[in-house]
């Protein structure tokens, strides 16, 4: 026992309250997974609220959803999935000790993340211009409503009545709360990845010790998965109109 402790002690990243490097790694992996579970519950609360209201106010939510830019949303989905790929490659590079590749993939992931946020900023600014931001200046006029009716009729939906200003605003409230919280997680992720890229360049990580890269990867994938749920829930409601009785 003492021997393994002493053997591990030479590694600079070893923390001395652990017995072995192995124990340290297992502990931090479990900790990271637990953290991700808390994140699931955190977003879970908002998803619950969203699903309840979507169920109650289907037409209003569909009408609100129709004003979102499907192209930009789909583009962002592709960007994020791509960033998950580069992140996975970054972890792989760390595992195999390819320092330059690690730095390159981390930077690429950061770039894709920034692209996502940039597109999101464009979408938000459109919403501001269209007065779709909840608050005193919120507007959802006859033009949007007509557009929705046309679209819904084209899909042979009967659920075109019952669009209510307050309920549409509720949709946008949840849209901003959920995508905003997601974007905040992206910003934090980009910050973490920047630090990792800097440290990787200095050669901190090696095949023996690359846990922080691995955990940042888990986090990044988690944030991606949240978006994979957000995108259909928020952007694709109208695709659902047709199948509803």
């Amino acid at each position: 026992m003492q021997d393994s402790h002493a053997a591990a002690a030479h590694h600079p990243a070893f923390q001395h309250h652990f017995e072995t490097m192995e124990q340290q790694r297992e502990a931090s992996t479990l900790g990271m997974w637990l953290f991700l579970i808390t994140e699931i519950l955190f977003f879970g609360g908002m998803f619950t609220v969203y699903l309840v209201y979507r169920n109650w106010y289907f037409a209003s939510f569909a009408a609100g959803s129709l004003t979102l830019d499907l192209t930009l949303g789909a583009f962002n989905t592709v960007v994020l999935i791509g960033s998950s790929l580069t992140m996975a490659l970054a972890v792989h590079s760390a595992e195999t000790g390819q320092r330059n590749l690690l730095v390159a993939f981390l930077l690429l992931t950061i770039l894709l993340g920034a692209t996502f946020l940039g597109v999101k900023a464009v979408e938000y600014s459109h919403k501001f211009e269209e007065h779709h931001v909840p608050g005193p200046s919120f507007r959802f006029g006859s033009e949007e409503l007509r557009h929705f009716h046309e679209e819904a009729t084209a899909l042979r939906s009967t659920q075109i009545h019952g669009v209510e200003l307050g309920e549409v605003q509720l949709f946008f409230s949840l849209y901003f709360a959920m995508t905003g919280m997601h974007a905040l997680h992206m910003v934090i992720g980009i910050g973490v990845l920047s630090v990792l890229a800097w440290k990787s360049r200095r050669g901190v990580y090696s095949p023996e010790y690359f846990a922080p890269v691995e955990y940042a990867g888990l986090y990044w994938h988690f944030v991606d998965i949240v978006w994979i749920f957000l995108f259909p829930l928020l952007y694709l409601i109208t695709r659902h109109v047709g199948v509803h009785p």
Partner: protein
Amino acid sequence: MSTAVATAPESIHRRRHYLNADYGIRSWLFTTDHKRIALLYLFSITFFFALGGLFAVLIRLELLTPAGDLMTSDTYNKVFTMHGIMMVFFFLIPSVPATLGNFLIPMMIGARDLAFPKLNLASWYLFMAGGVFALYSVVTGGIDTGWTFYTPFSTTYSNTKVIPAALGILIAGFSSIFTGLNFIVTVHRMRAPGLTWFRLPLFVWANYAASLIMVLGTPVLAITIILVFLERAFHIGIFDPRLGGDPILFQHLFWFYSHPAVYIMILPSMGVMSELISAFSRKRVFGYSFVAFSSVAIAVFGFLVWGHHMFVSGQSVYAAMVFSILSYLVAIPSAVKVFNWTATLYKGSVSYQTPMLYAFGFLGLFTIGGLTGLFLAALGVDVHVTDTYFVVAHFHYIMVGGVIMGYLGGLHFWWPKITGRLYPEGWAKLSALVVFLGFNLTFFPQFVLGYLGMPRRYHAYPEEFQVLNVMSSAGASILGVGYLLPLFYLLWSMRYGPEAGPNPFDARGLEWQTASPPPTHNFEQVPIVQEEAYAYHAAQEVPVAG
């Protein structure tokens, strides 16, 4: 007890331990030692407890007379709100886990520290930051929503400082999440060689179960508070009925955390009970595995009963029935625990030292608190007693009678370990007795008041309720004395108490095998465990190790 004090008085000063390893304010504020962080929590929660107690004094003073003449109704509403917020979020939830749990879990499992010492320190800073926000809300005008923040009152109608208080709770919530995460990882990954799950002390099991709730429940509270915050700041309609939002949805989300939160409070205290009763009966806890699994069962079932706070809220009759039957199911593991503790005394060798007196007190009060919970789970009776003083009395029996008895009992039990000193036994016994009597006098009349129909959160009340309210206030003053006594003699003992030695109660468990106060890394050598935590009989033949 006095026989245990045999070592030379200077030895504490000669030997290096976690208290004298380093001096100066920085060595405390930047420490990553779980024992020092436990003490930081101990002092902080004592402060918040004193503050919450001060608000309680104001409440009981106001309710001495039916007229509501001591303060305005707005002030009274702020006072009971702050009493609730301080006590629930800044005292009861961190009470046992953040202090005793922090101090003992690594020692009980033979580890040098928690898995993430820096995160542990960060938790304390988050806790204090949350406290600062809550205090800011008090100083700048207070908050009057009740600790439950029911919408749309909290989001639209209240004119008080809701946002800073809500932020304070949010931040303190993250402290709780990280503490729970730290405990779970520590228990899974840091156990000493040979320490299997079923050799773990029941205190560890109980804190593990409570940690599961902290990790799974608190994030939901966090997002709920964020939504309330957004609603209040921008009127976005999520809980505002005028904009299509549903205030009942808020109650569902709030109680999804806040009912399990009761188990965050009581489970660690139940863990303390298992330790005390076994140590002072010199016996293994009767039905160890049933007690251990009942903790986990409480944690799991505890997540499924939140709707019993909403039987008259307008939720569906069938939902209410499901929540009622589940609430009865969650009562069973608690009953199993009480029966097992009682049976532990059978053919034991019982001594009546202070911690054991607290344990007796706990059993009495928790039994009453638990049984009155059956009244509240009973749909037809709950309709009458919900939102009355019956509920107030019930949850004080659980939270104050249960949690604080466990907290004080545990503090007295491990005080010699924490400080290396003994407290004056006579005073301690007196305070246990005063707390028990004062508590019952304060809260028993409230059951009667509640069934009579006195609603909670009333600033003024009809005259016929006065006698019972005066009794309650009188009891509260006795209770207050009971709480002040330990504050004085424990502080006194830190300097003047006789030295305790490593194991003054001759208890089992790894924490007693190291010196008091323990060295910075807890053990001179990593212990190798060959027996369970309650091996009183094995130990009677073999001399005590360490």
